[in-house]
Every structure is written in C-alpha cells, then in structure tokens.
C-alpha cells in the first residue's frame, strides 16, 4: 500500500457509503436508532473534503487524517470506533509503501483499537464480527505469501460472511443490545459498513 492507494481506498469507501447509506440506516432502524447510514455518510463526506487539500507523504498519514476526521464528524458509537481504528491503522503505516504483512499488522492494530474502546467480543453482534474474520483472512493470506490484492479479496469475502453471520446473533453491545432476543434475525449495521470498507479495499487494490 502506498499513499495514493490509501487515498483511493478512502474515496472508494466514501462512494460505497454514499451508495449504501439508506441500506445502512434501514438496518439501524430495525435494531438501533436509524442513523448509521447518515452518520457514516457525514463522516466520509467530511473525510473526502479533509483529504482533498491534505498533503500526505505516507499512507499512514492519509489514514490517520481519515480517522481524526471521522472522530470529529461522525458522533454516535461508530465515530470513535472507526475513527480510532483508522488512526491506529494509519499509525502503523509510517513508511511510504508497505507490504502485505505490514498492512496485516496495521489492520490488527485497528481491530485492537475497536476492542479496547468498545470492549466488545466476537459474537456480540458488532462491527467486530466482520472485522475479526476479515483480519484473520488477510493475515492468513499474508502469512501464506499471497499478494496484497488476493489478501484484500479474501478479507472482503470474510467480512461479508461475518456480516451475514451477525443476523442470528443476539446483540450484547451498543444500542441493539437493548433488544435482547429481539435483536436476533437482523443484520448488524456496523458489521455491514465494515464489510463495505473491506470490499472497497479489495476493489481498490484489484483495479
């Protein structure tokens, strides 16, 4: 990953969020407060603007800026969680280019940030349920010596599978947890946006 690729990735996420905004909000309306699409859209619109005239030397700088902008524009639970994750990913990417293994480590730092902040575990029906399998798949590919594009595709596939796997789960964190058993049967909005983020990565590096 290099600086341009990082920019392209964030642009691709912004485009995906814009496209799926209503879907995310709809999912959040079933088990949350109907704002996840709006929140993500506000955040990535702000990020697009913030990056437009931001000079970065490393992919890390782009992603730290992305995280900070999300923190300062999203609000809600997803703002600090995604914001913190992008900042952590970015901080782990200090060189102008990084290989697949380094990027895997950066993604791991991102997940650690989400877990530290939100204290959720896999199975709690959150973004972690898409993020954790995506990271595992990426790492596995990296360890097996696969290239970045292949690792990113594997991660995106795993994220989507994880996303779908949230449907039968009962939420234990975030707003959906108040539903108790009634949260079962609905796909988690945050896991869905996480899947968009990994799919955007795969499409960016594959293009």
């Amino acid at each position, binding site marked *: 990953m290099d600086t341009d690729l990082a920019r392209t990735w964030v642009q691709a996420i912004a485009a995906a969020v814009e496209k799926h905004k209503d879907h995310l909000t709809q999912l959040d309306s079933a088990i949350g*407060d*109907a704002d996840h699409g*709006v929140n993500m859209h506000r955040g990535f619109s702000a990020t697009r603007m913030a990056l437009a005239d931001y000079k970065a030397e490393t992919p890390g700088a782009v992603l730290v800026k992305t995280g900070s902008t999300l*923190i300062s524009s999203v*609000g809600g*639970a997803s703002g600090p*969680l995604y914001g913190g994750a992008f900042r952590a990913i970015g901080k782990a990417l200090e060189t102008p280019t990084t290989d697949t293994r380094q990027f895997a480590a950066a993604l791991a730092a991102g997940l650690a940030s989400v877990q530290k*902040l939100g204290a959720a575990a896999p199975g709690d029906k959150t973004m972690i349920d898409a993020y954790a399998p995506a990271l595992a798949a990426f790492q596995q590919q990296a360890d097996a010596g696969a290239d970045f594009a292949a690792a990113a595709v594997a991660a995106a596939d795993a994220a989507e599978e994880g996303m779908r796997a949230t449907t039968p789960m009962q939420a234990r*964190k975030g707003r959906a947890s*108040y539903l108790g058993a009634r949260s079962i049967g609905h796909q988690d909005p945050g896991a869905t946006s996480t899947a968009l983020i990994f799919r955007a990565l795969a499409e960016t590096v594959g293009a």
Partner: protein
Amino acid sequence: MKKLINDPGAVLDEALAGIAAAHRDLKVDGENKVIARAGGTKVGKVALISGGGSGHEPLHGGFVGLGMLDAACPGEVFTSPVPGQMLAAAQAVDGGAGVLFIVKNYTGDVLNFQMAAELAAEEDITVETVLVDDDVAVQDSTWTAGRRGTGATVLVEKIAGAVAEQGADLAAVAEMAKRVNAASRSFAVALTACTTPSSGKPGFDLPEDEIEVGVGIHGEPGRSREKLRPAKEIVATALDAILADQPLAAGDETIVMVNGLGGTPLIELYVVFHEVATALADKGIVIARNLVGNYVTSLDMAGVSLTVCKADADMLSLWDAPVNTPALRWGS
C-alpha cells in the same frame, strides 16, 4: 413524514440559530455547536457540561444557565456529539476549577465524551465524568451496553449544578452528581413511535391498541409490547419496575418527574401525576418535589417517563436553590 423543518440535514444548525435568537442569556457557538451561558463561568466555579444527541429538547440546551449547566453540546438528532464539541465547550467554560462531563450511558456518548476528556487533559483542563444510567427497563445490564440514561439527567444536572454554584470543588460536584444518579430510577412507556428527520419513518411499528413498555428515549425497545390500558395501570407498571429496583419505605422523601416524551398533551401528564401521587401516598412515600412536563423528550413520541429519586435533605435543598435556564427557572 410531517415536520416543521426545511431540510433534514439542516435541523440542528437551524434549531441552534433559533435558540440563539430566542435566548439572550445563552451564547451559541454555531461552528462548534456549543450552547453556553452568555455570561461565561465565574472564575473558580466548577463548570458543568452535558450533551448528547438532539431530539430530546429541552435537554440539554434548555438547562444551560445559572444553577445548572455551563454548556451543552448537542449532536445530530439521536446521534452523540463529537469530541471536538465537548473540547470546545470545555475550553469555553472552564473557570479553572475543572469541568464535569454529565454523560448519558449510551455507547456513542460514552466513547465520544471519553475522547473529549482525553483531548481536554492534553489542554490541561481537569475533567471528571459522571454517567447517568437510570433506566430500569434495561435488565441484565451485563448482557447489554448497560442501563440507559434518561430522566434522571435533569435531576443530576439541577442538583450538581446547584452545588457547583455554591462553590464546591470538582470532586464534590462529581460526587453529588453520582449520588443523585444512584438515587434515581426511571421507566418509560410509549404510545407511539417517533420519527427522526433523516429516516422519515417511525422508528418502530406499534399497532393502534398496543404500547411499548420500557421504551428508551431514542425509541429503543423496552421490556415488552402490551395492550393499551388505563393510565392507572400504566403507572402501576412503571412504579413497580422502579420500586422493585430500588425499594422505598414509608416516610422516604422523593423528587418525582412525570415527563412527556414530546407528543403527549400536558393534561394527560397531570392525569398520570395524579396516579403517581395516589400510588406513592398509599405506600406512605412522600413526593417532596416534582416536575410535570416535557423535559427529556423523544421528538414526537407520545408517551411518558416516570423518574423517582430518593432524595436526602442535601438534595432537596439543592433542588430548591435558584435556577435560571430556558426550561427550568425558580428562586432568585
């Protein structure tokens, strides 16, 4: 969706402009989205800051003023504010004696205020945080994000605000805020769902003869969906839940708030208060002070929340201390 708005995306900005135009005693920073006292904070006074998603008006901006908050940070509708807002607020109102963040216990609010506290610490502003989590409708809080913060927020802000006004230090103000929260329990019932401007649809479907028992102020579901029934029975359900969680004895003094969720006529709130007063009187529990009205709303939701705070003598005397805000005003 029928709303008196221009553009769903502009509601917060325009409402802030309206608040600025309406209240001379408030200073509204439209850029940072901070509502503060026009006069600023007295040097040496602990500053109280609260905030949260919008759509609960008068909470929180309506409680900024003498004897209550120093500043409020409104987020987008039903969305926690961002850390930058709380930081800007803290910088604006810190009187050198530190800042108390009063945070309703929702993941988003908790995380954003937590980040704000870290940012403030970097600016050498001392911050203490108090979580409000009074909603007994949330059971098994180990399996959830914990109890939600609702009506007790008003009591915490009023009483902690009064003790701050008297010159207490940050630890003492935080301590009092925690005491009020610990002594308070709330329970809400919705007759209708609310509609956020951005989604444009009711948050949940509630048949014409059903109510959501234990609803949250963002339309979070409650304990159960039940048949509509008389006010007396609805009050009994709410009181039972509250008293099961914090039993009260004959002679105990309380502050009781009967709070409309936004779409409920005041005449109904008085009918409800009558039932609450009767039921508590039957048990010998004393309503020493009360509020009946719209204080912590949920947009256009029809319904009511009941908050009962077991109040000691300190709390009662702080309750009576002067307050001068748009939504709560007494004393002088």
